[in-house]
């Protein structure tokens, strides 16, 4: 029978956070991580910071194409249309 898994240290937890968010940890490691998080406000704050970082990164929005670039792409389209016909 397997013994009780060793407790994770905070320094190990921060290295597992991204895999945790990617749902890439084994069931055993996920349980160990969640057990640690339940009793550690600092690592819970770290996880919340990481989630917030990803939320903000996902909200970055691109700028529209410049008129010059749009014209260049129109030209690419017209050449393709001609080739295609």
């Amino acid at each position: 029978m397997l013994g009780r898994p060793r407790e994770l240290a905070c320094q190990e937890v921060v290295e597992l956070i991204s895999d945790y968010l990617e749902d890439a940890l084994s069931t055993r490691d996920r349980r160990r991580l969640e057990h640690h998080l339940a009793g550690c406000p600092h690592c819970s704050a770290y996880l919340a910071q990481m989630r917030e970082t990803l939320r903000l990164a996902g909200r970055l929005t691109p700028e529209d194409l410049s008129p010059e670039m749009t014209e260049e792409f129109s030209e690419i389209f017209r050449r393709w249309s001609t080739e295609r016909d």
Partner: protein
Amino acid sequence: MSWIKLRPSRPRDRSQRADEDLHLLKRLQSGDEEAFITLVNRHHDSMLRLARTFVHSHALAEEIVQDTWVGALRGIDRFEGRSSLRTWLLAILVNRARTTGVREARSVPIADTEPAVDAARFNSAGAWSAPPEQWVEDVEDRLGAVQFGGLIRSTLEQMPERQRAVVMLRDVDGLQSDEVCKVLELSAANERVLLHRGRSRLRQALEDTIGGVENHAR
């Protein structure tokens, strides 16, 4: 290349975006120029940012994007929809970028021993000695949208190329991990290592800046 603005919320649902792409693609296949320009606009920033992980020059990156579209248009009738249009385009772009031979993103080693958090912030037992501050609730109040856009951009630009490519595709563009692996020809394990390092840097950059804002206000 700038991402100063912030969307009010998460981008629309991925499947909705993919459906819109397919609708535009059908219009493009029937010769609709406006649909083409709309598609170019929707994917331009992702493509340009990915191209910049292969070449230093912005002008050369723009050429790679244009070249990608020339290739995509020529093969557009062969697109079978087995991957999303975005994944298909980005995979073409990576192939084109590699043939330019200016800089090979693959040359950046994946093995990276940089810790997620400075080891000095833990005691000898590995517990926090300098724990993270609680700033999640008011991050947007403390850091305006303009400053945030600049911060993310400069942090991304300091990352090694492949790390930057993975973080941009996964966290900024919102591709699934398997799509990121396909586009960049990475194993799932390597993708996660690069993602972890990149995300850790982004979080640290936010913490450094927000901490600075708070100290400054005191």
